């Protein structure tokens, strides 16, 4: 594996040369932020620590320092006394369809599945996103500062996913999380075989699914080889041969083989996840996370050994056969696998659930501890902060309250593992994006404006 990795790194370098300033790149630049000092708060830092009666200093949009009794003698500082209140990193959802299945959920807003071919690696979810989806603001009020939007699961390979900051912008580029890698959505099991099988088209079986992935990767490997072989030629040699024709679908798959695009794999059943791991090894790519992963607990050690996260619901089940074997301990079991080296993520896949990821984590935590584990709330906080940040490839800039990271911060009125906890203030890059004590701070999308009463916004 070591040798292979070196070859891939070399390939990645060569391949990168062909890609110039990419279209649709993020244009987001954080507004200058005020200096804020959060005093006397109880803090889950998203790294597994709990600090009681601590201070947190936000400066220049970053976490400046965290500790007891920080010096408040700073120029132009806004001081918040948070005695008895809780502070966490901004909550991150690794599996959202906001913007691609916008509200109202009418057919003209159903833009999440390009279900016209089982492999559509050429499509990007971000090209479907509606910037005025009223669900973004609702998620912000639930503490969501960052979310990853994926295509749906109708296809074996559904296309690219994109990470967004939960800020208002009239362009997708303006919302995109700077330098966050794309993901590739893949899907196992019932959905692809149902969608295409019902059309008497491949895949109509699980074995057809597996054949479909492997065929796609064989094409991708050849394409990548051709691209790399062309790029490795001398300038003189390049003049006498024409460059390989670019192919959007294979660009994406080659990006995965180069390690630039992270695989987010919708997969429920244990044996299917194990097979997907073998396919990844066969073609030399890595699976970042299995999504939904209702049966992840059956192969928890295998996931931990392969450094693959499980992104899961706390308790959804039964809506289809592959979701029949739900255990509420799933998330805790993944977390505790191989002496606590597992990576558990609580995801939503739902516009209501995304607003209450803290409650979902609370359910999963309680179930795990009832089963005999001894998991702290501070550790469980990672499931909705640093672990999804890691799985989205943005852990260097967000997901926990450590010095130098983006100041994406939520203030809660109560311990966030309680149903009665409500996000009071939400900061993104140090800017106060939502303040519950100021109803006018609720972001109002164009859709929300004047729609029930001409002189009011929808949520007023």
């Amino acid at each position, binding site marked *: 594996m070591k040798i292979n990795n070196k070859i891939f790194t070399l390939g990645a370098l060569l391949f990168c040369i062909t890609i110039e300033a990419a279209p649709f790149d993020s244009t987001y630049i954080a507004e200058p932020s005020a200096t804020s000092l959060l005093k006397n708060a109880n803090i889950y830092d998203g790294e597994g620590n709990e600090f009681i009666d601590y201070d947190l200093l936000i400066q220049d949009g970053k976490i400046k320092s965290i500790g007891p009794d920080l010096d408040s003698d700073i120029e132009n500082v806004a001081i918040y006394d948070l005695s008895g209140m809780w502070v966490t990193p901004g909550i991150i959802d690794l599996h959202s369809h906001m913007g691609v299945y916008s509200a109202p959920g009418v057919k003209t807003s159903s833009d999440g599945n390009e279900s016209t071919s089982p492999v559509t690696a050429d499509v990007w979810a971000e090209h479907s996103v509606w910037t005025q989806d009223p669900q973004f603001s609702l998620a912000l009020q639930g503490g969501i500062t960052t979310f990853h939007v994926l295509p749906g699961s109708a296809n074996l390979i559904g296309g690219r996913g994109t990470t967004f900051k939960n800020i208002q912008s009239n362009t997708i580029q303006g919302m995109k999380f700077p330098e966050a890698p794309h993901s590739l959505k893949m899907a196992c099991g019932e959905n692809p075989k149902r969608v295409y099988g019902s059309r008497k088209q491949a895949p109509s079986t699980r074995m057809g699914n597996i054949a479909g992935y492997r065929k796609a990767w064989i094409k991708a490997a050849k394409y990548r080889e051709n691209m790399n072989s062309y790029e490795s030629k001398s300038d003189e040699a390049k003049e006498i041969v024409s460059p390989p024709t670019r192919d959007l679908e294979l660009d994406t798959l080659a990006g995965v083989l180069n390690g630039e695009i992270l695989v987010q794999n919708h997969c429920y059943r244990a044996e299917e996840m194990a097979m997907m791991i073998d396919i990844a090894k066969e073609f030399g790519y890595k699976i970042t996370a299995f999504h939904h992963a209702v049966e992840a*607990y059956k192969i928890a*050690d295998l996931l931990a050994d392969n450094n693959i996260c499980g992104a899961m619901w706390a308790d959804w089940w039964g809506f289809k056969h592959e979701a029949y074997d739900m*255990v509420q301990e799933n998330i805790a079991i993944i977390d505790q696998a191989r002496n606590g080296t597992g990576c558990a993520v609580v995801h939503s896949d739902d516009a*209501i659930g995304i607003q209450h990821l803290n409650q979902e984590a609370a*359910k999963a935590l309680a179930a795990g501890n009832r089963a005999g584990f001894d998991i702290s709330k501070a550790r469980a906080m990672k499931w909705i902060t640093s672990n999804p940040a890691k799985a989205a490839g943005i852990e260097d800039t967000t997901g926990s309250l450590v010095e130098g990271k983006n100041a994406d911060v939520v203030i809660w009125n109560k311990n966030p593992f309680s149903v009665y906890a409500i996000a009071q203030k939400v900061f993104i890059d140090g800017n106060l994006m939502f303040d519950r004590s100021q109803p006018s701070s609720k972001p109002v999308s164009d859709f929300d404006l004047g729609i029930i009463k001409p002189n009011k916004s929808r949520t007023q």
Partner: protein
Amino acid sequence: MKNLNLLTALLLISPLVINASDLLIENGTIHIGDGSKAFVGDLYIKDGLIKSIGDLNVKAKNTIDAKGKIITPGFIAPMTAIGIVEIGALDVTRDDESDYLNMGFSIFRGFNPNSTLIPWNRSNGLTSVITLPQQTSMPLAGMGSYFILDGNMSISGKQDMVMLGKMGASSGSRSEDLDLLENLITLGKLAKTKNYEKVLESPLAEFFELHLQDIAALDKLANKKLPLIIETNRATDIKHLIDIKNKYDLNLILAGIEDAPLVLDELAKSKIPVIINPMDNIPNSFDELSSSLELASILNKAGITIMFDSARSHNYHLIRQGAGNAVAYGMNYEDAISGLSKNVADVFGIKNRGSLKKGNYADVVIWESDPLEPSSVPTYVFINGKQIDLTTRSSRLKDRYIKKLGKN
């Protein structure tokens, strides 16, 4: 596995089996379910019934020390598919749809007391439910039944005790749907005096290809106060349905009602009870643009009787989480407990259940902590005074795999 203590786990999940035919539950924090304030006291169960409640001086064969624990009535979910849908995407496991009947469709004989949804929801605090068919015909679909979740092969409950309807957000015109609803009720009124065969000859009955069962159901609806749940959201629909209720003296319950704050006074005055999902603040259609997390609180302050629905299939017990969120956003706590228990019994005429009243069937749950916290689960569940085994298919799977961890 680090940190895994199986012995502790077993102790936690398997309380001793109690002979509950003569049982005193002592020193629990008791929520009667009728909206009154909780108190610390005792509950005495004898021969399946709540024999007495309060600060008791009773010698019982068995006792449970419930100090620090919460005691509530078994919760009742008013809108479920428990017993008639095992796996959502597998129609061969579903019995919630009729091919030829409309409002006369009964799901009662489809009910499966061996469904895995029963132990699962029961171990999470539901002791009885109303199970409803799919809304496959507009504006009135079939009839739902009430089921005690004892899992017995001899089914107990109440057959065909509610009809389901829907208004708005369809491809046709709601104006026509309201008209149709009135015409169908009028047809039902006719059934009071004419025999059903005669009613079937009406052009409306012929147009919809109604059958005798449909006419019988309309007769119950129009003349015998069969409760009718109509799912609707837009403010104008709520207003028109209030008018129709008054005009025909219907036993109407409204569900959804996300635009209700726009017609709050009219709704409160109508005394119509409502079923809401307090967590659904998504403006998911053009009918529900006023949706918000404050809905439960707004309705509660207006004195409207509230019951709860949840968004997800299978986990109907999550009405508790909805109630918890309703309280977080301003609903009265004890009213939320009533919404999970007594309100459902009262609204649907379920006798001797839904509250911890002397003489009621002993559908009782003892919780380790606040039942409105979704992380809380019951320690004991009693139905008709019988202790329920809290094992579920899910807990069996968990036990099997937790033992295997770290061994490969």
